[in-house]
C-alpha cells in the first residue's frame, strides 16, 4: 500500500520531467521521423499530390474570370494566397513586362494547353498525382500529366548533356531532406497559368522533407539571373494519395491539344491562317 501511494506521486512527476521539462527524450519531439528504406533513408515512395492554387498563379491572386470568358465559371480562376515566400516574384523590370504580356495571351501561349511537359517545379504542383519510386542510386518521379518523368541521380553528380523540358536532376540527402539540384532546363516551360516564366538559365533546387506519415514539405528555390533580380523560394505541403489501391493513370493529353495546335491545318478548315 505504501509503495503504491509513493508511486502514485512519483510516476506523474517523472512523466512530467520526461515529456515536458526535458524535451527530446519523450514522444513530444516536433520533428517527424519517416519510416526508413532498407538503406536507412527516409522512404518517400508513394503517390503524392499538391493541393494549392499554385498552378493557376504562384503569386497571391483574387478570383477572376476564365481566359475565355464564355467558358463560364468552370474555368474561372480560383483565389490563391500565393506560395512565393515574400509574396512577389522578384522579376527584373523587362521580365515583369513580359510576364504581363504572357498573361494577356495565356490562352494561346501557355504550354500546358498544348500538353507540353510541365518542367520543374510546375510538374510538382499541377493538380494531378505523381509517384516516387526510390532506391539508393536512383529516385524516379513519374507524373501523370503528359507522362512526364524524371530520373534523379543519387550518385556522384553528372552534367546535363543538353537542355530538356524536365531538366537534369542530381540528388543527395541532407539529414532527412531529399535535395534535388535541377539544371539543363530549357526556356519553354512556364511556372503557372499566369504567364510566370523563366529563361534557359533557370536553376532549381528542390527540398522534400517528410512532415508526417502522409505529407511532405516541398520547397523550391528558383534562380535565373536573366529573369529575376535574386533567387526566390516557393513552398507548399504535398499530400499522399491514401485511397485503397491508389495508382497513377495515364493523362496522355496530346490528342486533346491537336485541335488547338493543328485545327487550322485540317482538310476543309478555313485556309489563310
Amino acid at each position, binding site marked *: 500500500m505504501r509503495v503504491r501511494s509513493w508511486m502514485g506521486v512519483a510516476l506523474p512527476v517523472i512523466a512530467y520531467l520526461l515529456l515536458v521539462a526535458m524535451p527530446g527524450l519523450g514522444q513530444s519531439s516536433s520533428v517527424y521521423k519517416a519510416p526508413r528504406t532498407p538503406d536507412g533513408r527516409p522512404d518517400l515512395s508513394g503517390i503524392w499530390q499538391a493541393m494549392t492554387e499554385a498552378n493557376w498563379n504562384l503569386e497571391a491572386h483574387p478570383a477572376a474570370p476564365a481566359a475565355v470568358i464564355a467558358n463560364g465559371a468552370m474555368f474561372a480562376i480560383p483565389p490563391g494566397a500565393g506560395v512565393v515566400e515574400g509574396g512577389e516574384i522578384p522579376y527584373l523590370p523587362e521580365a515583369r513586362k513580359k510576364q504581363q504580356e504572357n498573361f494577356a495571351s495565356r490562352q494561346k501561349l501557355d504550354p500546358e494547353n498544348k500538353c507540353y511537359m510541365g518542367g520543374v517545379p510546375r510538374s510538382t504542383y499541377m493538380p494531378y498525382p505523381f509517384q516516387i*519510386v526510390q*532506391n539508393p542510386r536512383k*529516385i*524516379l518521379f513519374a507524373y501523370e500529366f503528359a507522362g512526364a518523368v524524371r530520373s534523379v541521380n543519387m550518385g556522384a553528380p553528372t552534367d546535363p*548533356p543538353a537542355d530538356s523540358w524536365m531538366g537534369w536532376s542530381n540528388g543527395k540527402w541532407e539529414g532527412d531532406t531529399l535535395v534535388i539540384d535541377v539544371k539543363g532546363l530549357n526556356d519553354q516551360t512556364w511556372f503557372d497559368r499566369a504567364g510566370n516564366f523563366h529563361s534557359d538559365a533557370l536553376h532549381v533546387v528542390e527540398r522534400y522533407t517528410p512532415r508526417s506519415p502522409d505529407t511532405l514539405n516541398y520547397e523550391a528555390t528558383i534562380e535565373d539571373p536573366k529573369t529575376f533580380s535574386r533567387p526566390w523560394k516557393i513552398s507548399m505541403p504535398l499530400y499522399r494519395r491514401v485511397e485503397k489501391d491508389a*495508382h497513377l493513370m495515364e493523362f496522355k493529353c496530346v490528342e486533346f491539344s491537336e485541335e488547338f*495546335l*493543328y485545327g487550322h*491545318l485540317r482538310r476543309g478548315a478555313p485556309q489563310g491562317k
Partner: protein
Amino acid sequence: MYRRRIVAAAGLMVGIATLAVAQSPVAQKPAAKATSTKVSDIPRTADGKPDLSGVFSNAQSIPIQRPANLGEKEFYTPEELAANAARQRQAAEVGVHYDTSQFGLGAGQAKYAATLRTSVIVGPEGRLPALTPEAAKIQSQRRAVTAEHQWDGPETRPLAERCITWGFEGPPMMPVGYNSDLEIVQGTGYVAIVQEMIHDTRVIPTDGRPFSGAKVPQWMGESRGHWDGDTLVVETTNYNPRIAIQGTPISDALKVTERFSRLDANTILYRFTVDDPKTWVKPWSGEYTMTKIDSPLYEYACHEGNYGMQNNLSGARATEKAAAAKKK
C-alpha cells in the same frame, strides 16, 4: 567516308556478337521454363529479390518474325551468325540514303545483346499466328479508312506521328529502330520501367495485388507484378483498343504476360506471351536479352518538337491547293 564508318560499325557489331557468343553461352539457348534461375552473382535488393534496376538497350540484331525461308530453324550456329553479319555488312555498303550514324543512331552503334536466335518470336513457326476472321475484317476496315483519309487531320495520322505512343512500348516491349533504351528503377513494392521512346513510364506494383477493376483502359494497359522465385512476372490487361501490336489492332481481350530474369550484372532475359483470342487464333511468345548500357536515358520530347505533324498537314493542304488550281 560513310561506307568506311558503316563497315567499321558492322565489323564492331560482329565483334561484339562473336565475343559475347564465345564468352556467355548462357545467353544463346533458352533456359527451358527457367523458374529457378538462382544465379548468385546478380545484384539483389535488401529483401533478397533480384534487382532489375539499370539502364538497358533492348536493340536486337534479329527480326521479330523469323524469315520465312528458315522454316522451323530456331537457332543459327555461330558460323552461320558470322556469315550473316558479313552479308549484312556487304548489303550496308550499297548506297546509304540517310547516314544516321552521324547522329549516333546508326544500326551499328546500338549495343546489341548477342543471340543465336533467328527471331524474337519463339517456337517452330517463329511468326505471328493467323488473325481471327473478325480481326482480319477490323484490320482491313481500318486500312481502308486510313487510305482514304490519311491526310485529313491529326486524328487520321499514325499514333507515332502524333507522338501519342511510339508503337513499341506494348507491353510487350519491342525493340525500336533507334534509341531502343529503357531504364528500370526498382523500389520497395514497385518496379518502374521508363522507355526512352516516348518517355512512357510503367509503374508496376510487385506485391501481387489484384487488378484495380477500373473500367478505364490505358494505352500501356494496367500491369500487376509478382515474384516467382527470381523471376518477376508481370501481367497486363485493360489496354486501350486503339493501339496495335506488331501492326495489328488489338482487342479489349488482350492479356500479356512478361517475365524478367536477371542473368548477371549486365543482362536481363525478357520473355513474353501475347494472348488476344479475339485477334490471333492462338497466343504467341517471344524472348530476347536486354543488355546494360553506360549512358543514361535522354529525354525524347516527341510532341513538344513535333514539326513533322505541322509540316505533313500543311504540305497536304498545299498539294491539294495546287491540284485544285491546276484544274481551273
